[in-house]
C-alpha cells in the first residue's frame, strides 16, 4: 500500500535528509578533493633536475601528471553525479511533501529539525 499523509511526510523527510545532508555533503567533499588534487600541479617544479639524470623532469613526471588528471576527472564526475542526485532527492522530497496536508505537516517538522541539527538555513519552501 503506497504511503500517504504523515507516513509519506516522513518518507519525504528521509529523502530530504539523504539528498541534502548525506549525498550532497559527500559530493562537496569529492569536489574539494578534486580541486585540491588539481592544485598540486603548482608543485611540478620539484621534478626538475640536471637533464643527465633521467631527463630534465625525470621519467615519471608525464605519467604522474596523466594519472593525476585521470583521478581529477573521476572525482569531478563522481561529484557531479552525486550533486545532481542529491538535488534530485531534495526536489523529490519537496514534491512528495506537497501531496496532502498530513505529509506537508510531518515533512515540515522533521525538515526544520534536520536543518537545525545540521546548522544550515532551510531551503525555501
Amino acid at each position, binding site marked *: 500500500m503506497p504511503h500517504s499523509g504523515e507516513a509519506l511526510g516522513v*518518507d519525504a523527510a528521509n529523502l530530504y535528509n539523504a539528498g541534502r545532508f548525506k549525498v550532497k*555533503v559527500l559530493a562537496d567533499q569529492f569536489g574539494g578533493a578534486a580541486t585540491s588534487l588539481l592544485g598540486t600541479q603548482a608543485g611540478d617544479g620539484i621534478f626538475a633536475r640536471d637533464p643527465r639524470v633521467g631527463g630534465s623532469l625525470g621519467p615519471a613526471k608525464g605519467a604522474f601528471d596523466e594519472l593525476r588528471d585521470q583521478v581529477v576527472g573521476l572525482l569531478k564526475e563522481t561529484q557531479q553525479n552525486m550533486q545532481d542526485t542529491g538535488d534530485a532527492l531534495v526536489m523529490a522530497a519537496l514534491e512528495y511533501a506537497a501531496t496532502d496536508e498530513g505529509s506537508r505537516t510531518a515533512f515540515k517538522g522533521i525538515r526544520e529539525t534536520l536543518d537545525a541539527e545540521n546548522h544550515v538555513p532551510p531551503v525555501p519552501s
Partner: protein
Amino acid sequence: MSWEQLGDHAAKIQQSAIIMDLRQRGFGYDKGRVYDSSMTDEQVQTVVDITAGRFAGVAAMFDPFIKTADPAGFDRLSERLATEVAHWLNAGQGKGGTEMAANPDLGRMDDVKNLVEPWFGAAAVNFRDNFLSKWPGITANQFLLIMILKGAAEAEAGVWRAARASIDDIAHKAQAALDAMLDCNPKDLAFLLTVAGSIGAVGGFVTTGGLSLTLTVLGEVSASAGAIPFGDKKELPFSGKNAMAIVNAVQGAITELIGQVIAAENKILESLNAGLSAVAGSSDLFIAPRPALADATPATIRDETAGLGSALG
C-alpha cells in the same frame, strides 16, 4: 660536508687531486705554491698546468647532482595528497606511509541506503543497484589511485634524499682518500650508494572488483613500515693509492648513482602506468554509472518507471 655545499667540495676535490698528484710525484707544496728545487719556476708551472689539465673535469663530474629534484618538495606533495585528497576517500583502508585519518562522513552513504529503502520506482532501484551498492568498492579503488600518486611522491622523495646522501658520501670519501693518499697506509674506502634500497612496495592495498592488473603503491622504505625495498644498499670499494685512481672511482660511482636514480624512477613510472592501464581497461571499477535519478525532473520524479514511484511498506 652536505649536499648544499657540493659545488664547493667538488672544486676542492679537483684542487686536492692536482696537488696530491704533484706531491706524490715529489713536488713540494706550501701555502698554495708548488716547488721543486731542481726546476725553474717556469718549468714547475708547466708541470702544474699539465697536471691541472689532467684533472680539469673532476669538479664537473659532480654537476649532475648540483641541481637535483627536491625531496622536501615531494614530502610536501605527499603530505598534501594524504591530507587534502586521499583522506576524503579513506574509509580506513589506508596503510603504510603517512598515517591518515579515515573520513567518518563516508558512512553517510550507508545511511542513504536506509533512507531510500521504501522507494521502488525504477530510478530508486537503479540508484540502489547501480550506484549505492558499488559505492564502497569504487571509492576504495579511487582511493587506491590517489595512494599510487601519493606513493610516487613519497618514493621520489626517497630517491632524491638517498641520491643527495650518496653524492655527499662520494664527495666526502673522495676528499678523505685524497687527504690520506700519502700516508704510509693509504685508505681503501668504499662509496655507499643507497638509492636502490630507498624505495619499495607498500603492502596492504587491494582493488575491489576483480581487476586483472596488479596495482602497487610505493613508498620510501625508511618512512613506511613493512615496505619491501626493490634493492639493497651498494658499496663500491676503491683504492686510494693515487689521485687518478680516486678520480676514476668517483666517476664510476657517479655513473652508477645516475643509473640507480633512473632505475628507481622507472619503478615509480611502472606503478603510475599500472594505475593508468587499470583506469583505461576497467573504468567501471573506478567510476559508478550516473544514477538515472540525477536526471530526474519535477515532471518525472514521481513516475514509477522514470522516478522514485511510491513509498511502500
